[in-house]
């Protein structure tokens, strides 16, 4: 593993064994997270992006969930093989996570200061006074004014934006190498979202942690990601550096995601991807996107699953007709008409 890769996910497969059948949430996902950079995992609800993150932290509820294959390499070892006691040291110290809804991730009956200080004293084995000092310093760092008095407040006394800042402070206080941010701004208003994205970018420049950003929003990706993987029905269907992906998306699903997004610059009819996201209990055979795809041929696409292959330098896609999608774009033709 090269030195600039912090964490490498290889062939990760996570399934849920439910009464209705086997839910193939994550199938053969591989992903590199570079040091000090932001890798984004983009997809719609149910595509497996959150389960991928929970699998990295080994937080998938078991039963019904189980990681059935793969490896998560960080440094020398495979996180999936660590004893649970060692894994507990990884969570928080080396990898931490923030969630979409900060209210449900904070304990309502403890003050913000106590909650963060608890994390500090657990992981760093320091006393309460020292832990509170570090907590106040961290709150200041995430842009919370007057941290000394904020320490004594309860989560409900804070706004959504402030709570997300508290969550970020809590997740960074032990100096993790990787921050997993699962839809960190989805529940926030757009002006507050802009503040939080600016904060994450500043903290990364300052502290140098890697970020695994999980989101459905290509706009948020454009704001802070360096590298993007697009997920559909449990698999990565395309990945590239941010500029390359926005310049030349190759997978028809990615193209559709771009074209279905209203932007201020582009008016007129939107391209809608027909149909709906398949259930992980019943993923279509062949290419999982073929029932919704404008390029599907009705034969090969429905029968054979396309492998994730390099189509351009540093750019992979899982599509039998990725070249045609690229040709159409260079000719200025619209895939979704």
């Amino acid at each position, binding site marked *: 593993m090269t030195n600039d890769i912090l964490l490498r996910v290889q062939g990760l497969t996570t399934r849920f064994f439910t009464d209705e059948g086997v839910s193939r949430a994550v199938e053969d996902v591989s992903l590199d997270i570079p040091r000090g950079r932001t890798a984004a995992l983009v997809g719609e609800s149910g595509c497996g992006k959150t389960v991928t993150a929970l699998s990295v932290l080994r937080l998938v509820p078991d039963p019904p969930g189980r990681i059935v294959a793969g490896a998560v390499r960080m440094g020398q070892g495979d996180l999936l093989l660590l004893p649970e006691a060692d894994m507990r040291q990884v969570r928080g110290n080396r990898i931490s996570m923030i969630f979409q809804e900060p209210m449900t991730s904070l304990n309502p009956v403890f003050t913000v200061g106590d909650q963060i200080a608890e994390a500090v004293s657990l992981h760093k084995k320091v006393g309460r006074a020292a832990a509170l000092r570090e907590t106040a310093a961290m709150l200041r760092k995430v842009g919370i004014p007057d941290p000394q008095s904020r320490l004594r407040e309860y989560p409900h006394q804070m706004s959504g934006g402030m709570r997300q800042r508290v969550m970020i402070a809590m997740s960074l206080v032990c100096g993790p190498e990787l921050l997993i941010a699962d839809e960190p701004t989805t529940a926030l208003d757009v002006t507050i979202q802009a503040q939080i994205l600016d904060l994450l970018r500043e903290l990364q420049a300052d502290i140098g942690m890697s970020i695994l950003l999980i989101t459905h929003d290509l706009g948020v990706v454009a704001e802070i990601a360096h590298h993007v993987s697009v997920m559909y029905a449990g698999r990565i269907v395309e990945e590239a550096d941010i500029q390359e992906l926005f310049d030349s998306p190759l997978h028809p699903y990615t193209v559709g995601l771009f074209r279905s997004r209203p932007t201020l610059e582009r008016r007129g009819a939107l391209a809608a991807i027909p149909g*709906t996201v398949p259930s992980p209990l019943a993923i279509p055979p062949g290419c999982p996107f073929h029932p919704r795809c404008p390029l599907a041929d009705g034969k090969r696409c429905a029968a054979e699953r396309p492998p994730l292959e390099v189509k351009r330098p540093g750019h992979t896609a899982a599509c039998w007709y990725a070249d045609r999608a690229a040709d159409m774009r260079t000719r200025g033709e619209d895939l979704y008409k």
Partner: protein
Amino acid sequence: MTAPDAPDSAPRAAPPPAGAPSAPAAAPPADLLLDVRDLRTHFPVRRGILGRTVGYVRAVDGISLRLRRGRTLGLVGESGCGKTTAGRTILRLIPATAGAVRFEGRDVFALPPADLRRLRRHMQIIFQDPYGSLNPRMTVGGIIGEPLKVHRLARGRDLEDRVARLLEHVGLSPAYRNRYPHEFSGGQRQRIGIARALALEPKFIVCDEPISALDVSIQAQILNLLDRLQDELGLAYLFIAHDLAVVSHISDDVAVMYLGRIVEQAPADRLYAGPLHPYTKCLMSAIPRSRPDRPRDRIVPRGEVPSALNPPPGCPFHPRCPWAFDRCPAEVPLLLPMPSASDHLVSCHLCH
């Protein structure tokens, strides 16, 4: 008008002086459908065991809007700005505190119940949450057909035919009529909600964040559906949303709300090309970039939205405004047309 909690004794945040042009002062266009004048909705805040009223949340604090037939007016703002309350007050689902709503020239707040019910045929609403807004115990056919039964417009065979046509109209198979809401995805449920709203052949629909609970690839489907239905049926929409990109995509005109008031209103193209109110500029610059190589020239408002229970004096945006000056906390700015464009209204001391 019935407004049991009219805060007559409550101090008003300096209402505009009588006769102030707080709305387009031009003569009403011939195809004017909806005319909202200085609408206010204040909610009493009660404290203690006696439930004494200790103040008012000024959710909607004097807004004026006009909507022409077959057009879309976008109402955009962040959570708590009063946009949802405004939509519901216009439909008389929430009692207004003051102001007037005229629909086809008739005063909605003054109508007796029987007339109101007849009028409601023409004014419908689509809700944000396609999970909470459909009765889980009713079949899809029952949900869509209920308004027709309530208004005694169809029964028996005719009712079934109309439900089938409505389902087809919104892109669902008529075979779905015997299924229950839980069998459908979010996007399909939103289509069911739209079919229900269309059942009475309305002229006006309040669309309250109709796509924000949906997946990205489904949002475009619903926006395109609303667009097509408008063309086919001549519907007028009040499109309420927090996303300026979505609103300016679907709307002819856009009104930007902040703390219960409209701070800027203009045709969508003009607003996008040249926003004038500092809050609109902030909202627009906060939209994530559409491409990673676009410059990030962001105007971030300071702090957070103040409470509508205790709005700041003067311009409600002044504590967060990067350009605030001494006049802003002292004087409430009026929503006035720009000298250069009579259809571009701005409420800001910098502009007037």
